[in-house]
């Protein structure tokens, strides 16, 4: 089937079988390999991208279902080359080790902080439950998201 999707502001077109998963289209069709594929059954969160601003598991959507929609992947976080505050905080707080889960965490948390800029630690821990990390442990990740939340809140305040 012919499909067309906007990813990070750029249009991608392709011919896909209906059974092609969105995660596979993003990586192999569009060549955007920042999105990682882990369990392919919706549990691990590594493949999380944003569909029209909402976080979704790209392994649980067919590519054709994104036809005509707008996606954002981890490549779209650092618009002009500068790291997004979340990415910078992950770097500084040692919130990643192998990095396989990181894109999914970033895309989940970017949406979460946009929707809940004043979230407390408990809410944050609950929001993080949808992404699994097998090596770093979660303390660095929690610290990074809290740091980024503080920075993003500050940026919103009028000078």
């Amino acid at each position: 089937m012919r499909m067309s999707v906007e990813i990070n502001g750029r249009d991608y077109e392709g011919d896909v079988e209906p059974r092609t998963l969105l995660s596979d289209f993003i990586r192999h069709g569009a060549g955007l390999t920042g999105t990682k594929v882990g369990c392919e059954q919706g549990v691990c969160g590594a493949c999380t991208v944003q569909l029209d601003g909402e976080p979704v598991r790209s392994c649980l959507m067919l590519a054709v279902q994104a036809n005509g929609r707008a996606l954002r992947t981890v490549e779209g976080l650092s618009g002009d080359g500068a790291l997004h505050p979340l990415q910078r905080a992950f770097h500084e707080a040692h919130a990643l080790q192998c990095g396989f889960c990181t894109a999914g965490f970033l895309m989940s948390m970017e949406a979460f902080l946009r929707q809940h800029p004043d979230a407390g630690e408990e809410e944050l821990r609950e929001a993080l439950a949808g992404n699994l990390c097998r090596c770093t442990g979660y303390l660095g990740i929690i610290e990074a998201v809290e740091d980024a939340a503080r920075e993003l809140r500050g940026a919103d305040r009028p000078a």
Partner: protein
Amino acid sequence: MAGASGRGLVKPAPFAYQAPATVDEALRLLGADSAVLAGGQSLVPLLNLRLARPERVVDINGIGELDYISADDGPLRIGAMTRQVALERSELVHRRWPLLHKAVRFVGHAQIRSRGTVGGSVAHADPAAELPAALTALDARFHLRSSGGARTVGPSEFFLGPLYTAREPDELLVEIEVPEQPEGSRSGFAEHARTHGDFATAGAAAVVAPGRVGIALLGAGPVPARAAAAERALAGGAEPREAAALAARDIEDEHRRALLTELARRAIEEAMA
């Protein structure tokens, strides 16, 4: 961009894909060889693992007429394609059917609720799912349509076993109707899962109002079931602790019985607080 094919990289077995724009069109496509694709949060994992191999996938995501939450004529009416996140964010639901607001927050994670649908959760009929249990406590009605007609069934007729419902292959669940709750109605929901958002081990939903008590358990048996003995006891003035023990008394496994007794107590106490 040319060449964006992802050629050869497929996980599910082949299927014919159809994406109708209306309910009538969808009903013409449904049959024994088809699977309905709503939010896909349960069906797509089954496709990826090839545990489900339908010949035809009928994708109802494009059917706008199935996406609504309204209470214009009294009862709450939820279109089957309503996303769980829409239920979670609905001010109307939060105010007048708070049990649904409480329960939906336990469904998977935000990344699941953004796609998962209310109708999909009901039609999938996982005995450990939150919404079927909450809807059972609330005496919901499920509206089914086929090209031959329409019917409406309650939870006890609809949920027949694990992942098994009264929906025929040519039928589509189109609406979930939840009756108006009596004035002064209160609710509680409690569940246990290994981590938040993980599949629940067990849980309990309770609605308590003057003249009405509804208690339903999840993870207690093959279908979400009403705890009739506990309801009667509570209506007759029993303490939450006594009612909770009655709710779980028929469960054989000792751990599960203890767990459900405690969860039922928490749900009932929350509803009576």
